[in-house]
């Protein structure tokens, strides 16, 4: 069940020049409901007339033990700037948990989780979930430079991590789609989140190699729960549907990204 709840910020860490990890817990210590990888929250940005709408953010991790939600935020100005400026102890009002989840692989299937920049956010939660369920997920993280690679230690605890950066400052130089792992290894399932051109390239790679692939979309979302009909994606055979309720996770076969 979706809910609106006031949270309190328990931690706000700057991971690199633009990326922040904010941890929040319910203000009145209400136990958090079950949440699934791929789901997101809608963050209310306080006291700002120029930032009118809530901002959707992936659930980076659900820390059951500490009753916390982790949010990975890239400060790209505007609303994200306001959120990253918040201090420990300040309030944050969230609508959550919203959206669907990734589908689990079949038994013994190999998985690769490909994230670009802050798009790695939901993949940590997914990776933990896969790992808890006995899978051995592998990760391919990409960015413009080493500064875009966040939470490397957390990912490394969950499985093998490959890295690419466009400037070569960390890992392989180039784009995630050029990483040799994609040529040398055989995966049964790919999950991806990041910039749309990256996800389209991965969807194409998956289609060419007959690999099942799921992507997390980030269309503009005023409401996040299927009321405003603004975040639509044109899906094969079904037409315009809401990314917020029927997604944000889609099998790339359903999308009109590639022919």
């Amino acid at each position, binding site marked *: 069940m979706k809910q609106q709840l006031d949270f309190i910020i328990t931690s706000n860490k700057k991971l690199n020049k633009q990326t922040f990890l904010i941890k929040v817990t319910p203000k009145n210590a209400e136990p958090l409901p079950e949440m699934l990888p791929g789901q997101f929250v809608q963050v209310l940005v306080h006291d700002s007339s120029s930032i*009118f709408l*809530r901002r959707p953010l992936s659930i980076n991790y659900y820390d059951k033990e500490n009753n916390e939600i982790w949010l990975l935020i890239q400060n790209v100005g505007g609303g994200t700037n306001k959120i990253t400026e918040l201090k420990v102890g300040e309030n944050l009002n969230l609508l959550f948990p919203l959206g669907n989840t990734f589908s689990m692989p079949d038994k013994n299937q190999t998985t690769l989780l490909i994230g670009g920049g802050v798009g790695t956010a939901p993949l940590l939660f997914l990776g933990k979930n896969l790992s808890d369920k006995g899978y051995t997920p592998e990760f391919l993280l990409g960015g413009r430079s080493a500064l875009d690679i966040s939470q490397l230690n957390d990912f490394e605890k969950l499985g093998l991590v490959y890295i690419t950066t466009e400037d070569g400052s960390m890992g392989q130089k180039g784009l995630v789609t050029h990483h040799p792992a994609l040529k040398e290894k055989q995966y049964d399932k790919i999950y991806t989140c990041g910039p749309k051109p990256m996800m389209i390239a991965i969807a194409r790679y998956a289609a060419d190699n007959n690999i099942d692939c799921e992507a997390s979309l980030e269309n503009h979302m*005023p409401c996040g729960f299927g009321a405003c*009909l*603004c975040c639509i994606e044109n899906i094969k055979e079904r037409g315009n549907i809401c990314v917020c309720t029927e997604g944000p996770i889609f099998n790339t076969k359903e999308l009109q990204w590639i022919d």
Partner: protein
Amino acid sequence: MDRLKVKIGDLELKNPVMTASGTFGYGTEYSDFMDLSRLGGIFVKGTTLEPRQGNDYPRMAETPSGMLNSVGLQNKGVHYFVSDIYPKIKEYDTHIIVNVSGSTIEDYIGCTEALVGLDKIPAIELNISCPNVKEGGMAFGTSCVSAAQVVKAVRKVYDKTLIVKLSPNVTDIAEIALAVEAEGADCVSLVNTFLGMAIDAEKRKPKLSTITGGLSGPCIKPIALRMVWQVYNAVKIPIIGMGGISNWKDAIEFILAGSHAIQVGTYNFINPSVSVEIVDGILNYLDRHNIDSISDLIGKLDY
């Protein structure tokens, strides 16, 4: 709670707080966040005779204290509404009012005829003010002649409460309100969105796929309030006021300007339970000011 009761035509509302079409889905989208039975009514998504895919993405642009949308009446058509949606929502303990849209007068008539027999739909809101469709929509609501024509035609086939939703994109909204009143409208609701535009300066491109769209949110409230007041001073039928309402104080302002009831729109996206908070806030206001009934406040602007 009788203190909050108001009447719109034959329609008795338990309170004057309703939710605006296009911002509240079919109500079900909000049932996790609030108790729908606390509302005076729910205006469900704009419905057309034939299914509509709506406009292409992007359909939304954020603006200071508001947003532009160009959804373009995406819906599965009135027959789908009757067969698949109505059975799921008819037991709600609040009034369900369908917003009826069309491209031609025949569309409006066809859509209305499909709804007239539904027991639990006590009223329709005739949308002659959608700015986001190529044909019809707002075109009907921007001239007295065409507004009168569509209301006259629908009135002939609809004997329940007929509400007409007015466009603010006109020179004199009171004139349009008078024209639809003369053709038998039981109530006018106003305002729909203002035609607006947003541009991405860096890319030198419009932010909406349709270039223009409808502006809503707190930024339009002062203009909406002025229009409600002008219409109140012109017509005898009740008014449902809306335009940027985001708290109980806004709602009281619209009632003072002459609204019998109000609709909460865009702010539902920001705070999905704002409408019930407004009901509580209005009651509290009546208590503080020793006012017996909300009816005593309608149009009671002191000047």
